[in-house]
């Protein structure tokens, strides 16, 4: 391709320029700031568009702003170009509104023939040039001081190189595709290094479910193990139950043995009963005979039967009592005699004195008089009279005084009144107090008079009282003196002493009289009792023929006889009672024996013969029931291997006389142990069965399995897709490597050719590594070094060689790409300029080259070394 014409309406400082270009070397010459670089930028802008965006960190404006024209409204331009095939095209671009139109040679708008990228850019240049803008910038389009920049590690460039063999342009990037596959694998499926992607999540869930499944299986296995254990326990329980049954069998056996022993005991008992019955009969008959005799004796002494031993006893007591009374009577008589003697002696005392009865009276009288005397003396009427007289005198005196004052006041009152009437000042006024005083005194005297009258009356009364009091006092005193003389005393104290003595004697006398009285009464009573007793028992003894006369006092002998007879009857009666009781008791015992025998024989027994017959029958039954042989037949099931039970059975079989109680006790103990054992087993079995019933891992296992199946299927599908992606990546890389290996030698060859020419064969071996970094073999040292270690100019030259080589590789089957070289010789020496120009000249034979320079010398050299005509564009002239 080559650019024929540039039409700049407005672009940076350029406006309304039309520039014709040739297909070979075009040298665009101009001073600094003449617009050379702007022109270069215009070309790229029309081909690829202008980028917008923000100001860079360095303060550089984005291209769309940087190149906005200063002075005019138009910000647009167009390029006409021709492809190698001869097809001509025109791109018109308005940078202001972003509009782009591509026309063919017939001015058909052929926009629709080109693809549009994501940023809505029409990819016309990409298609026609066969390279992207990035590749263009890194190869054919060299800006000032940027020869070496941007090549290294350019994936875009590498991809383009890889695709160098493709016909036509296709924006096929190996790295993009590889990244796409890798990202798809990583993000949408998951690799071993990720953890949150779909396959990872599925695998994670699968692992978790597998663990869970393992747990459930274990749980299930545990449950099955428990079931197994449960079965074993049931077996043990079964054996224990068999043992229990064996124990019950042995108990039955022992019971049977016990029954037999029991029967033997019963037979012994029956025999004993039989003997007892015989003895009882003998005893019964004997006692019956004795009873009959006693009853006969009682009949004979019927008359005595009216009286009992209690009568006898009472009689004995009363007779004794009677004798006692008699004795008592004698003693009473003696006492009466003594008492009479004492009395007469005491009376003799009082004969010498005043009658005893007066003593008390006198004492009493004296006491009264003394009391009265005291009262009279305490009345104090004398003092009262004196007081009254004194008071009266005072009152009279007071009255007298008051009277005088009253008279005075009266006179004063009259005086003052008169004076008042007489006209004396304050005469009436003085009358008032005077009159008031007079009145007061009048009232007071009046009161006093009354009072004196009262008191005079009182005095009179008191006086008479006093006189009466005196009179009585004299009387009392006379009375007292009389009593003193009667008792021969002179004073009250003597009287009191004498009185006390008399009283004592009087008391004694009284006592003796009383005593005598009582004794006489006692004597009478005693006598009466004796008579009563005599009367009572005489009748009784006459009835019984002991005495003949009721008045006869029975003697001891007679009474004794009576008593003996009574006792004899009593004895016989008691004896008969006793014998009757005994016979009853014997009868009861006999009945009891019959009943016992009946219980043993299980039938009614009423006589001794029946008992004897019963014994015989029982003996016969016992003989039949001998179980000793049964014991030997008892055997335990061989499955029951139990030492204790075996020992017990051996013991049973060995012993003739079994200690059933001991054995039963031992067996009971063992039975209790087995029972506990069975209960324990039951408890364990129930526990296990409950556990088994509650264990339901089956359903969960099923769910887990289903889920696992589902997840495994999904995992399988994803794994398959992952495999596909991996294979695609592998094959893609292999293909890319293969292609890389294809272009690499070509690139190297071109590179070496170019650098060799540029450096006049100084450097012959310059290569680009996989990252497109340049390394060169230093001719002197043969050492391979990175080109950045060389001088700046040499680096520029080497990268120029690289760019040219890349263009040459890329365009091998594609459109020839024009070169745009802006001030590339800045660091070149003359020789290198020359050699480079020669190359460019050679290249310009079949491609368009635009060389931008500000140096006249370079222009001259270019013109000199170009084999064909050079198109010189003077920017100064254009401007």
């Amino acid at each position, binding site marked *: 391709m080559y650019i024929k014409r540039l039409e700049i309406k407005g672009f940076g400082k350029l406006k309304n320029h039309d520039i014709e270009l040739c297909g070979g070397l075009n040298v665009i010459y101009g001073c600094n700031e003449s617009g050379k670089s702007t022109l270069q930028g215009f070309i790229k802008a029309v081909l690829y568009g202008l980028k917008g965006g923000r100001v860079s960190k360095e303060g550089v404006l984005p291209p769309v702003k940087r190149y906005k024209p200063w002075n005019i409204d138009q910000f647009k331009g167009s390029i006409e170009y021709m492809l190698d095939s001869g097809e001509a095209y025109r791109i018109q671009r308005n940078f202001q509104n972003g509009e782009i139109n591509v026309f063919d040679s017939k001015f058909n708008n052929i926009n629709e023939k080109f693809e549009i990228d994501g940023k809505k850019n029409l990819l016309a240049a990409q298609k026609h040039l066969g390279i992207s803008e990035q590749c263009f910038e890194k190869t054919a389009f060299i800006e000032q001081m940027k020869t070496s920049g941007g090549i290294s590690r350019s994936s875009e460039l590498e*991809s383009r190189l890889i695709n160098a063999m*493709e*016909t036509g342009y*296709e924006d096929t990037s190996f790295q993009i595709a590889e990244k796409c596959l890798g990202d798809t694998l990583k993000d949408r499926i998951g690799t071993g290094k990720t953890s949150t992607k779909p396959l990872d999540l599925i695998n994670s869930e699968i692992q978790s479910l597998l663990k869970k499944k393992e747990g459930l299986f274990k749980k299930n296995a545990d449950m099955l*193990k428990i079931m197994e254990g449960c079965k074993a326990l049931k077996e043990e329980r079964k054996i224990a139950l068999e043992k229990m049954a064996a124990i019950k069998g042995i108990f039955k056996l022992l019971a049977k043995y016990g029954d037999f022993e029991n029967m033997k005991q019963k037979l012994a008992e029956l025999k004993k009963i039989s003997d007892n019955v015989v003895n009882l009969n003998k005893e019964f008959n004997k006692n019956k005979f004795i009873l009959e005799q006693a009853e006969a004796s009682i009949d004979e002494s019927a008359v005595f039967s009216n009286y009992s031993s209690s009568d006898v006893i009472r009689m004995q007591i009363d007779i004794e009592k009677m004798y006692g009374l008699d004795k008592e009577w004698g003693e009473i008589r003696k006492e009466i005699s003594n008492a009479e003697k004492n009395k007469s002696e005491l009376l003799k005392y009082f004969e010498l004195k005043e009658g005893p009865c007066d003593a008390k009276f006198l004492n009493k009288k004296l006491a009264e008089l003394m009391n009265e005397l005291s009262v009279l003396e305490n009345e104090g009427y004398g003092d009262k009279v004196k007081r009254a007289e004194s008071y009266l005198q005072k009152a009279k005196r007071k009255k007298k005084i008051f009277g005088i004052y009253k008279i005075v006041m009266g006179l004063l009152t009259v005086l003052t009144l008169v004076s008042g009437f007489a006209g004396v000042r304050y005469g009436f006024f003085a009358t008032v107090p005077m009159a008031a005083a007079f009145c007061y005194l009048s009232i007071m005297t009046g009161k006093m008079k009354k009072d004196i009258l009262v008191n005079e009356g009182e005095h009179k009364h008191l006086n008479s009282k006093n006189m009466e009091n005196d009179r009585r006092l004299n009387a009392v005193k006379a009375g007292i003196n009389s009593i003193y003389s009667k008792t021969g005393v002179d004073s009250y104290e003597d009287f009191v002493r004498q009185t006390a003595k008399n009283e004592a004697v009087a008391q004694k006398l009284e006592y003796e009289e009383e005593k005598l009285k009582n004794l006489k009464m006692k004597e009478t009573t005693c006598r009466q009792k004796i008579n009563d007793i005599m009367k009572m028992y005489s009748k009784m003894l006459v009835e019984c023929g002991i005495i003949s006369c009721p008045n006869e006092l029975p003697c001891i002998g007679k009474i004794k006889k009576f008593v003996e007879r009574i006792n004899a009857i009593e004895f016989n009666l008691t004896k008969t009672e006793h014998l009757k009781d005994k016979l009853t008791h014997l009868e009861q015992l006999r009945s009891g024996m019959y009943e016992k025998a009946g219980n043993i024989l299980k039938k009614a027994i009423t006589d001794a013969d029946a008992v004897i017959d019963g014994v015989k029958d029982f003996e016969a039954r016992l003989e039949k029931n001998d179980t000793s042989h049964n014991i030997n037949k008892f055997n335990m099931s061989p499955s029951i291997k139990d030492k204790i039970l075996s020992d017990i059975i051996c013991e049973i079989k060995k012993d003739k006389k079994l200690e059933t109680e001991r054995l039963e006790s031992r067996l009971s103990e063992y039975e209790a142990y087995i029972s506990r054992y069975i209960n324990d087993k039951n408890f364990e079995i129930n526990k296990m069965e409950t556990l*088994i019933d509650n264990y339901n891992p089956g359903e969960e296992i099923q769910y887990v399995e289903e889920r696992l199946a589902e997840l495994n299927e999904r995992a399988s599908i994803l794994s398959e*897709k992952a495999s*596909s992606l991996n294979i695609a990546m592998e094959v893609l890389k292999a293909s890319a490597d*293969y292609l890389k290996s294809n272009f690499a030698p070509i690139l190297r060859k071109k590179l070496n050719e170019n650098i060799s020419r540029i450096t006049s064969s100084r450097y012959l071996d310059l290569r680009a590594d996989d990252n497109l970094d340049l390394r060169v073999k230093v001719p002197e040292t043969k050492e391979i070094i990175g080109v950045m270690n060389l001088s700046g100019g040499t680096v520029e030259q080497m990268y120029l060689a690289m760019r040219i080589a890349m263009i040459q590789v890329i365009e091998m089957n594609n459109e020839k790409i024009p070169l745009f070289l802006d001030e590339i010789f800045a660091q070149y020496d003359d020789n290198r300029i020359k050699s480079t120009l020669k190359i460019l000249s050679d290249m310009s034979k079949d491609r368009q080259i635009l060389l931008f320079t500000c140096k006249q010398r370079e222009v001259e050299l270019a013109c000199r070394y170009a084999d064909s005509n050079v198109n010189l564009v003077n920017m100064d002239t254009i401007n």
Partner: protein
Amino acid sequence: MLDVFSRVIKLTKDHKAHLLLICGDLYEHSYVRKSTIAFIGKKFADIMNTKVVIIPGNHDPYVSNSYYANYEWPSNVYILRSGSNKIDFEDLNTCVYYFVPGIKIPPPKNTGRINILMLHGTLDIKMGRQYNPISMDELSHTGMDYIAAGHFHNYFVKEGQCSVYNPGSPEPLGFDEPGEHGVLKGYISKNKDETDMVFNKTALCEYIRFEVVLDRCLSNEEAADSINKAVYALDKHDGLVEITLAGTVEDGFSIDLEAVGNMIYKKVYHLKIKDKTRPCLNIGKLVKDGGLKGLFVENMLEKIKESKKEEELKILRRALDYGVQALENGEIKL
């Protein structure tokens, strides 16, 4: 499954069978629930007049913690195992033997009896997974009057010097078990000519699998339409149907299986659709275009050509599709 089991029991009861022979895999040892065992036990108890003889299989081994060993089966159930590998039914004049894995089958003790051998294993299979392998030749020398086999889930009867009857599973368990499933019912006699066993279908469901081939399909409706035509003729309301979509779809289009499933109007018990279609790539153009893409396609085609396995082929074809998508579009539709 429980319903099918009930059916089998009912069949046994109606037939008034003397014997019910179960040649293993009655339950899955690791998964079975106790309630299921209880159900089975209860069903066996319903046919107390029938003697149920069971042998263990690879899924239900007779181990110490198995239900065979520890569950209290009804008294009409006899479980044969190693150490107790035969049972004699005097009243039926029959003796049933169990072929214990790894132990030679002894000859029948009483030739007057109807001697039945029950085995669970692979018959005449030389490769692949084998369980308790045995050959017809070996069986023909056992002197048994009837050989009942288990392990394979599909019904077959092998005739030869001796006849081996394998009823299969009474209910299919997956899409890999198509066809009818049931039990064998009939009469066994010492006289082989009088032995008459008839297959009785007991399965409630049937697994059906078929393929629908698409050609450059470019919509779900088109895919659904193709499926509907294919299933139209099906008269399997109780069927479990698996449809595999094969063939090609247009480049850039992938089938939405859920959407397609919703458009299937034929009612079946269960429908599963698998997508094994592949995109329709213009391989020739891709190769012709050359460059990285062309080379990639060429290399992938080479691999595809070399591949023999179906699964690998699927992966490679998909890899080709993914690579082309990545190169052309910079994105991939999985």
